[in-house]
């Protein structure tokens, strides 16, 4: 009795499986990928119609890097804002956000989900170098655009094996060049101590800086690194203080930026010129340290800081704050990551407008042929340009100095392409 029951069950299960395989296989979905006709014949139109465009983004909404997850809110607010005004060229944007917890395997899974299940037109933003590096082979093989990744590593613009991937923010090497130029001009004999995060971000910036000051009177005399998992950088700051350097290059992320600024302020015996990198330059980082303790700190930027009162009357900033208030009421408008999301989304808007064909190929080509494109959230004088052999949209930054309760821009925007030539590895 039991034997036959078991056999029957097995047979039934096998039959069911075979039926399922034959009839309703989910693998067949690849057939839904579409191509265009007419002038753009043969190009992929998956995820885009005359009325809609579907984009997918992968951000760390959980885990150790969740602080950056809020970028997705800025992006989503921008698209909602645009959709209410009729969409991008008549197309409503659908923006699908997935969480990778800052783990590369999770990023791969989510990228595949977005491409294969959600059928997105493009993967608009993967965040962080590890996650981006983990998925870019896949996306390029699938010929899915991966525009404006949220990482400043210089890898995204160099090399030609990944034509579908492109960065956006000034890469860390470019930023390093801005500081190098400033020091060579203002303090040609500077001895520099560097505090850097021990990952691609810190290493790229430090390496770029060393290369840019090579042969000049500016010397790096001390370097200390920290891990993101470290509780504090106070020990590193004490070590750097021993070097007696007259400049401190502070390559940190927000929390550690606050710690380093506070440690510098507390140490009354060592008063170097403190250069804090862009990632940690938000007013939200400086405020906890106390504005009186960060006077004279230098940094560089390329987009408007929402916490900075000087942009209070700026129309783009107003639109941003209104939209964020409306579409993401729980997000803090003063958080620069939200503004970053807004800026990068409006940059993509420009690129989508510039597409010759409304296809994946069209977007791939459009982001690689930007000519001095202005974006409202970017600083005046900072524009996006790409071209053959140049896959870094933003390479211009402007220096600023903290005075009173806000940053004051000084000097002219520094176009590192002109100053140093193309960024090469």
């Amino acid at each position, binding site marked *: 009795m039991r034997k036959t029951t078991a056999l029957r069950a097995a047979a039934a299960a096998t039959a069911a499986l075979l039926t399922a395989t034959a009839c309703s296989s989910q693998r067949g979905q690849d057939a839904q990928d579409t191509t265009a006709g007419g002038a753009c014949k043969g190009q992929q139109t998956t995820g885009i119609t005359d009325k809609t465009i579907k984009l997918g983004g992968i951000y760390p909404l*959980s885990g*150790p890097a*969740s*602080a950056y*997850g*809020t970028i997705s809110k800025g992006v989503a607010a921008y698209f909602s804002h645009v959709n209410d005004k009729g969409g991008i060229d008549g197309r409503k944007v659908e923006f699908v956000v997935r969480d990778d917890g800052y783990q590369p395997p999770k990023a791969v899974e989510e990228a595949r989900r977005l491409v294969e299940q959600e059928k997105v037109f493009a993967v608009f933003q993967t965040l962080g170098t590890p996650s981006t590096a983990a998925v870019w082979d896949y996306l390029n093989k699938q010929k899915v655009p991966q525009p404006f990744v949220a990482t400043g590593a210089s890898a995204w613009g160099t090399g030609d094996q990944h034509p579908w991937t492109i960065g956006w923010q000034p890469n860390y090497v470019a930023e390093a060049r801005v500081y190098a130029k400033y020091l060579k001009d203002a303090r040609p004999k500077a001895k520099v101590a560097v505090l850097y995060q*021990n990952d691609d971000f810190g290493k790229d910036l430090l390496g770029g800086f060393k290369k840019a000051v090579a042969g000049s009177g500016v010397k790096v005399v001390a370097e*200390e*690194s*920290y*891990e993101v*998992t*470290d*509780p*504090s950088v*106070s*020990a*590193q700051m*004490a*070590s750097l203080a*021993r070097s007696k350097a007259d400049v401190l290059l502070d390559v940190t992320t*927000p*929390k550690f930026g*606050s*710690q380093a600024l*506070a440690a510098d302020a*507390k*140490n*009354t*015996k060592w008063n170097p010129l403190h250069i804090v990198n862009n990632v940690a330059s938000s007013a*939200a*980082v400086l*405020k*906890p*340290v*106390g504005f009186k303790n960060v006077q004279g700190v230098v940094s560089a930027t390329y987009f408007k800081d929402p916490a900075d009162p000087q942009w209070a009357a700026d129309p783009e900033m107003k639109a941003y704050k209104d939209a964020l208030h409306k579409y993401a009421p729980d*997000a*803090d408008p003063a*958080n620069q990551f939200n503004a970053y999301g807004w800026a990068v989304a409006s940059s993509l808007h420009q690129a989508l407008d510039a597409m010759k064909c409304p296809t994946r190929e069209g977007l791939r080509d459009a982001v690689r042929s930007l000519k001095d494109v202005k974006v409202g959230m970017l600083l005046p004088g900072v524009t996006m340009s790409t071209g053959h052999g140049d896959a870094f949209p933003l390479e211009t930054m402007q220096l600023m100095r903290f005075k009173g309760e806000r940053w004051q821009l000084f000097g002219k925007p520094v176009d590192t392409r002109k100053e140093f030539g193309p960024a090469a590895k």
Partner: protein
Amino acid sequence: MSAVTDLLQQVVEGLGSGAVYASLALALVLIHRFTGIVNFAQGELAMLSTYVAWQLVASGMPYWLALPATLAVSFAGGMLLERIVIRPVQGAPELTVVIVTVGLFIFVNALAGLIWSFTVKDFPQPFPDGGLDVSGVRMDWSTLGIIGVVAVVMGLLYLLFQHTSIGLVMRAVACNPASARLSGIRVGWVLMLGWGLAATVGAVSGVLVAPVLFLEPNMMGGVLIYAFAAATLGGFDSPVGAVVGGLFVGVAETLTGAYVDVIGADLKVGVPLVIILAVLLVRPQGLFGRAAVERA
């Protein structure tokens, strides 16, 4: 500055970090002593308490009022947590309880991010700015303050356990809960008390370190690892061991990070590992832990 002053300055920095580790290690040791488990969520609970304090101060309450209020809230919260989250898995394999605290860790961390976002918050510093300068070696008041408060907390815990009847009851429960029941002790209530106390000590830790580390949801994540190291080194059931272990780990990693170039700041996290391993191979119960005193 002479080499000696340099060295002493680094030692002071190490003591500063060490005091931070010690403060959280105290709470870890408390829980372990009374419930036999390692609470992975201890740091996150401390962070949550700190946010409570921050919220109170931000809503206009004076710091010195917000502080006792926070400690009271943490005490009650800790007791409640034991009752709601830990009691249901009591009697399950111990690893199950540990994993529940891991779940709690993830939950509390995300919850804080949801409520207060991941932006760095400024937390009021109870100690004055500036510091002490002894022949070229500078020690901030805040560092001294943290060490002082940690020492006081340790002393209070010692008094509580060794010289009060409630402390005696708590030790009895830690030692043999079944016999404690037979003597009429309400064990469940004492365990809640243990969690409440640990949460309070954790809150003290969070409030102390927040002005130095800056308050954000991941503030205690890094500290937790070092607090584990401190507690392991000191012996997981000795409050004195937790403090000494914390200070030792802090000084050791700072000095090797600064002076041993091969190790450097990036690999200094390996230093506590080596020390702990060495200590445990000689004394498996840690520096201050008790070897089991039992005769058949």
